[in-house]
């Protein structure tokens, strides 16, 4: 039996370090890795489920092709690559390389992923996507305001006197954050949760505010106005560091708590209490979630909430922070998010970054000269995870040829003409950064790939050979097969950072070179003015929004929409999944066997629906039938259906969402979504 240090590469705040026991080529048990101060006690249940996932009998282990009957049959690598090669040449010769869409998503993090685009560059180009499904509106909001995305180390929350989980539910999405919140509470800190649901993170909180979805900005701005009126701001900090305070003060001066309470549908007493807390409990940490910025007003909402930290001087000090995203461990990225998501201003002629992730379906169909003929999907499941599943299916089916690299038969893989078996996290070495904890971590290869699985780097290498590229030509772009070549590449990249030593990384997490434990403690802000830009002219130039943070109504949330579809669909993340991953495993299924929609007892009574009954959820874009779990505390008018369920399991929340970009950052506004629900008779 051997014990290896590794790191979970999923798209998740925690990016846990952990150790795995390997015996006879199988993961047999796990250990926590206390060297990671952010995740000292170990992984969540999803991490533990690697015990099953690494060796699941459902895993795709061989290349598969779609049969005429719609099923899949095993084929050889030679046949798979031969077919793909033939199609690639055909599309390139007849329509040009831009007739091929290369689609990648966040299924597995790592530096080795870069080689995928290298292949397509070598191939002569492809159409690719811009934007991101997750968090760019907020990233852009913070970047415009503070200059970059970084925050205090996770354990610093322990020092806070007031913690606001604003639309964030760490119990399910960042479980270790609760360790530090609990420690702070034990020392007397107040915890406030703002969420239309009574999220599980609110159970030990002092206050829960349940606003109408999409109205967070007006709450933040009204509190800001109240702070200014009561003199609960930090004038010294504002004078030294803030640009645009006077303009801001001027625009919010007439905004009252009463007005905000009315718009958001919450008791004004709670807003008064919260204003007092924000103005007087120090230091304050706000941890905003990502769900809140997936609305059409997402970026402006994040800017509005961030204003509370700015006015009270809660930036750059222990316990005082805006915990949006901490990109300090992404030391190898030349261009950091969100800038790396944007379409390049000057086309290099190689990649056509013409398809928006948020509007994937519509843009795929819209592409002309050349039209899209083929898609290559890796690390993603766009059918379930991109807005408007039915439109996505339609756009995929319109293509001539689809290749999907996958571990399991997802909704997207099921659409493929050829499925190539994807590696799992234990089968190739890589280096992983985190957007929450401050460590650079090594994820070593500890298992031989199962069946005929090949890492993507090797798939591309073999494909390049099949396409007739010479060894010399390929070596300019791709590493040769074999994990030792990947390690050589990674060691090469590490040379710029003498703090990072391979042996040390093999043992566990290493703090990112240049880490600021307390972000912005030097009060150095990389904005155009060098100050915190409460007023950002760049925001107006780039995105056409007000240079000041403002509250904007949701695009799909006005009364006229609500007549037909009166219920706001929330699609939060569950502890049981990372997006559409993990839910297919028995370990997870024992806790979440069937898709369930949570509904307010009041809305259920109005529709004659009892707990456990089947309902039809529908809007103009889609419908599904799932069972109901009543909830007696969720805000009336809101229903909650966890993100990540597959269509084949009963329905994804994206059946109802619309492909629409956020106000900034090319994010996806899939939370502007209304539905109606009726009992299945």
């Amino acid at each position: 039996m051997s014990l290896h240090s590794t790191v979970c590469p999923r798209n998740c705040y925690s990016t846990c370090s952990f150790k795995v026991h390997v015996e006879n080529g199988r993961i047999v048990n796990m250990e926590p890795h206390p060297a990671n101060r952010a995740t000292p006690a170990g992984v969540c249940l999803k991490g533990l489920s690697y015990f099953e996932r690494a060796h699941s009998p459902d895993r795709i282990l061989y290349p598969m092709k779609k049969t005429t009957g719609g099923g899949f049959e095993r084929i050889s690598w030679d046949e798979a690559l031969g077919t793909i090669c033939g199609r690639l040449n055909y599309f390139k010769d007849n329509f040009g390389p831009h007739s091929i869409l290369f689609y990648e998503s966040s299924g597995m993090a790592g530096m080795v992923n870069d080689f995928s685009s290298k292949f397509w560059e070598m191939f002569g180009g492809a159409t690719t996507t811009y934007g991101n499904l997750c968090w760019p509106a907020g990233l852009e909001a913070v970047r415009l305001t503070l200059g970059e995305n970084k925050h205090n180390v996770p354990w610093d929350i322990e020092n806070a006197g007031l913690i606001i989980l604003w639309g964030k539910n760490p119990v399910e999405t960042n479980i270790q954050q609760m360790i530090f919140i609990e420690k702070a509470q034990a020392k007397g800190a107040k915890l406030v949760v703002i969420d239309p649901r009574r999220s599980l993170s609110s159970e030990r909180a002092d206050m829960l505010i349940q606003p109408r979805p999409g109205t967070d900005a007006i709450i933040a701005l009204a509190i800001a106005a109240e702070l200014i009126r009561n003199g609960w701001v930090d004038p010294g900090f504002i004078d030294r560091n803030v640009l645009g305070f006077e303009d801001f003060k001027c625009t919010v001066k007439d905004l009252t708590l009463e007005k905000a309470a009315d718009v958001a549908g919450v008791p004004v007493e709670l807003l008064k209490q919260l204003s007092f807390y924000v103005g007087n409990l120090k230091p304050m940490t706000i941890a905003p979630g990502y769900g809140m910025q997936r609305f059409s007003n997402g970026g402006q909402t994040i800017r509005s909430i961030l204003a509370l930290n700015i006015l009270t001087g809660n930036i750059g000090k222990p316990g005082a922070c805006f915990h949006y995203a901490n990109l300090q461990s992404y030391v190898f990225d030349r261009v950091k998010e969100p800038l790396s998501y944007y379409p390049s201003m000057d086309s290099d002629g190689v990649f056509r970054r013409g398809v928006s992730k948020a509007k994937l379906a519509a843009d795929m169909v819209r592409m002309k000269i050349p039209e899209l003929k083929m898609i290559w999907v890796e690390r993603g499941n766009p059918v379930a995870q991109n807005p408007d599943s039915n439109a996505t299916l339609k756009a995929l089916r319109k293509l001539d040829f689809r290749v999907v690299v996958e571990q399991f038969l997802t909704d997207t893989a099921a659409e493929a003409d050829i499925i190539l078996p994807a590696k799992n996290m234990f089968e190739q070495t890589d280096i992983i950064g985190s957007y929450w904890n401050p460590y650079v971590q090594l994820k070593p290869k500890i298992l031989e790939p199962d069946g005929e699985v090949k890492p993507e780097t090797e798939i591309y290498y073999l494909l390049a050979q099949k396409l007739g590229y010479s060894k010399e030509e390929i070596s300019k772009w791709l590493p040769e097969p074999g994990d030792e070549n990947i390690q050589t590449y990674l060691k090469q990249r590490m040379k710029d950072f003498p703090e990072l030593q391979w042996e040390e990384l093999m043992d566990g997490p290493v703090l990112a070179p240049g880490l600021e434990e307390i972000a912005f403690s030097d009060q150095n802000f990389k904005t155009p003015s060098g100050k915190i830009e409460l007023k950002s002219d760049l925001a107006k130039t780039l995105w056409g929004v007000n240079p000041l943070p403002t509250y904007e109504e949701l695009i799909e949330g006005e009364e006229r929409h609500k007549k037909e579809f009166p219920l706001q669909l929330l699609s939060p993340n569950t502890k049981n999944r990372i997006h559409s991953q993990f839910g297919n495993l028995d370990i997870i299924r024992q806790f979440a066997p069937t898709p369930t929609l949570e509904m307010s007892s009041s809305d259920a009574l109005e529709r004659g629906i009892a707990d456990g009954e089947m309902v039809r959820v529908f809007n103009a874009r889609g419908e599904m039938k799932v069972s109901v779990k009543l909830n007696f505390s969720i805000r009336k008018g809101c229903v909650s259906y966890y993100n990540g369920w597959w269509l084949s399991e009963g329905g994804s929340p994206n059946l109802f969402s619309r492909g629409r970009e956020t106000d900034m950052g090319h994010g996806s506004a899939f939370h502007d979504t209304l539905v109606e629900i009726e009992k299945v008779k």
Partner: protein
Amino acid sequence: MRKGFIFDLNKCVGCEACVVACQIENHETQRASWRSITTFNSFQHPGLSLFYFSLACNHCDDPLCMNGCPANAFSIDPLYHTVDYDEDLCIGCRYCTWTCPYDAPKYVTARGTIEKCTLCKERIIGGKKPNCANLCPTGALDFGDIENRVAIDIPGFIDKGIWPSIRVVPLRKKEGPTSATRQLTENESALFQETQFRGERKTSLRSEWPLILFTLLAALLFADAAAKLFEVQVLPPLAFMALAIAGLVVSTAHLGRPGSAWRALLNIRSSWLSREIVAYTIFIGLSGYSLLLPTSGLLAIPCILLGLATLVSIDMVYATVERRYVPIEKSGSVALTGILFFAVLAHILLLSIPILIGSGAIYIRGALKTKRRSLLSLFASGVRIAVGFVLPLLLLCVHANLWLVAMFVLIGESINRVEFYLDLDVATPRRQIEKELLKELAVPVRGQS
């Protein structure tokens, strides 16, 4: 140092990692989940907070599973303070699944035996923590010093003075967050009640009918044996023996491992179930002996006493589960049924009339207190009262045929027995938490502050 679980309610967020950690460590032997999370207020009533218990076997100092096990399948390891279970010794009677308040022993139908948490004994011998505690991502479940543990007084947690090896850190803040959530309307409150108390129960008629049959048979056989003293010959000797053996067969067939049924005789030291089976076995043995060889009339008295001992033991088997040593609610006592049968058959009006009136009164009182009232249960109660009490009393007063009276009494007592099993309150963390919720909701629901 005495070691055990340390569970901090403030830190547990119900993530289920402990359940999975347990499954990983014990995947070779675990078929049913040994550890589980019980949620208090999972439907989020606005007046109450939500919290979790993560529970498996608590390896009690005075374990009810071990005390009640008729086959001595459990033992305490004095060195590591674990309650060990030996599957080879188990007869699959499932009594431990009724007596353990933590729902730790899990019955596995496919094997006909139970299984439960071992405290990851090999790990603790090696100086490690049980895997659940080792892999709890928030540090809520730990394993360590419980030397100074005290009785646990936390809503929803059953202590019962059996010294579970667990220290529970109570909630720092008992009430939920101050929130805008409105008070529930009357309709919503009704809906909440409906949603809550659909409670799955551990016992069902489908699985427990052999026990109902057996306990009724035991009461009947006792009455018959006792009535003989009064020169009333009810059952022909062969019928008596046939029923006696049927009782044995039925109760044996109910076991997961009928072939090991003899092991049920092994724990008369502490198990009422063992005592019941020992008493019954000797009772029918002696009865058969005296029936077949009528010369041995001297045996009648010990025989009747053993019959009564069987019935008292049966009552104690259930009283131990319900932790209610006076089985008066709905007069669910087999001993009383046996004595009533006897009094009717022997025509002792001084005994039968007071028992009919007394247990009738107790039954009516109990039936009035019952909360679950389906149409069927109302009907059954009606029949029970009319046929089981009123009719026999009337018939006794008009000196009707005793067989007729006996038949009506039998019908009434049978309904009583069925109801007793339906109402049997086997404690589980989930049931306890539901009860606690009810109790808390009886106080005025906290409004908006």
